[in-house]
């Protein structure tokens, strides 16, 4: 059988790859994709803990479903915002969107 720590390591790796994408990518769409990777890593952790520690209660799975719902809402609104910004500024590069910078 696969030990619990393997899942945790894979999830940590996936989370940190997403973190790197959020910190280092130029494009707002790429940043959003990296955030989705991070949310997926969290879900792997939730399901792995459910399976290894509490398999008779569906708590981890329920939380993972809520995370999926929030991720879907976040992607829809985020991409709508990116398209609206692209219409008004003609750019989706995160560093160029600095109107609020003082």
């Amino acid at each position, binding site marked *: *059988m*696969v*030990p*619990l*720590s*393997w*899942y*945790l*390591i*894979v999830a*940590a*790796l*996936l*989370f*940190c*790859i*997403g*973190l*790197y*994408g959020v*910190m*280092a*990518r*130029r494009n707002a*769409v*790429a940043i*959003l*994709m*990296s955030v*989705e*990777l991070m949310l997926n890593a969290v*879900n*792997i952790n939730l*399901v*792995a803990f*459910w*399976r*290894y520690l509490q*398999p008779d*209660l*569906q*708590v981890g*799975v*329920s939380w*993972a*479903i*809520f995370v999926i*719902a*929030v991720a*879907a*809402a976040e*992607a*829809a609104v985020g991409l*709508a*915002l990116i398209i609206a910004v*692209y219409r008004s500024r003609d*750019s*989706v*590069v995160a*560093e160029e969107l600095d109107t609020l910078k003082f």
Partner: protein
Amino acid sequence: MTIQQVVFILISLITIISAIVVVTDRNLFRAAVGLMASFLGVAGLYIILEAGFLAVAQLLVYIGAISILVIFAIMMTRRLMQTIESPFNSQPVWGLIGAVLAFLLLALVAIRTWPTAQYPAPSGPVVESSVQQLGALMVSPDAYVVPFEVASVLLLAALIGAVAISRTEGS
């Protein structure tokens, strides 16, 4: 090494390598396809963990909806398709250092708190009627009926909000 461990390592490799493609590839469309492959790998991990319902939800919501939405956004914004400019902003090295440090911290906590020797395998079988139990939890007042309703309101708000934000004036 058992056959299950081999399958786990293969699926993890697919997930991780496609995730690296997502965050490093110059071509955003290829990054979006890598994102789909990564989601597929995560669905495979759910199947190994015997969370079949969640694997199906992952396929439907992430690969079927979110990835397609991302690809539409890439195609609707012209400059995104250009591949000449660098994929990174001005701080890729600091981002990499931060991510590696975060990974070391997370891995240390995971290995110290849940050592391999103590948690080598799941503590018991998944109950037969797990999807039924999940449905009961979602509508039970003792469990998750309030988060369930809040999630439905959130999805409705996101639906209306996305339309309201992205519609053009006067149309």
